């Protein structure tokens, strides 16, 4: 585990998490959540969990983002908070 890389990506993860729940557009929130999942995938790879990393990349960053975008297109992009 390289701690400089670990700390940098942890910071990016926190920024993506806060941005995903504060942005006032649901499509933007879905895309930011995909970025959050991909940062977590990089974090798992750094911490030596390669099997969790590729599951997160395919399932977390891939399928979850597709689900969110499909749901947003079937409903609405507007949000009050």
């Amino acid at each position, binding site marked *: 585990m390289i701690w400089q890389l670990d700390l940098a990506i942890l910071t990016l993860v926190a920024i993506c998490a806060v941005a995903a729940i504060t942005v006032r557009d649901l499509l933007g929130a879905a895309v930011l959540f995909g970025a959050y999942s991909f940062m977590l995938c990089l974090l798992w790879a750094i911490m*030596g969990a390669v099997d969790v990393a590729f599951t997160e990349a395919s399932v977390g960053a891939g399928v979850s983002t597709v689900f969110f975008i499909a749901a947003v297109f079937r409903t609405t992009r507007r949000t009050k908070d």
Partner: protein
Amino acid sequence: MDAIIEIAIAKYNYWMYISLMMIGLYAIIAKNNFVKKIIGMNILQTAIILFYISISAKRGATIPIIRHAEGHGHEAVNAMEYMNPLPHVLMLTAIVVAVATLGVALALTVRLYARFETLEEDEINDQIREAQ
């Protein structure tokens, strides 16, 4: 005092796990939009995964694949050279469960939008109160 600060800095992964968990819990409780609540639920689940993966990490260890190259096959396996693979396998299940709950939650949200024409919790509550 210095020892306490040193321990607090050395465990930064756990501090980040606690803050991610609190971000997710805040989004579940305080956000008004259902999609935002679902994103918060997912952040909370991934925070738990971060905690378990942090448990399995060791300093100076490599990924949990035993070397089987030429001349490596008959050595004794030293567990200190590899990350602990048991939390990894548990968290594979957790990721799949997270996607299953996400699918169910988004399907319920789409049905709610078809019924009430909105995704905001307070507007849905108002419509239900007016209908009574």
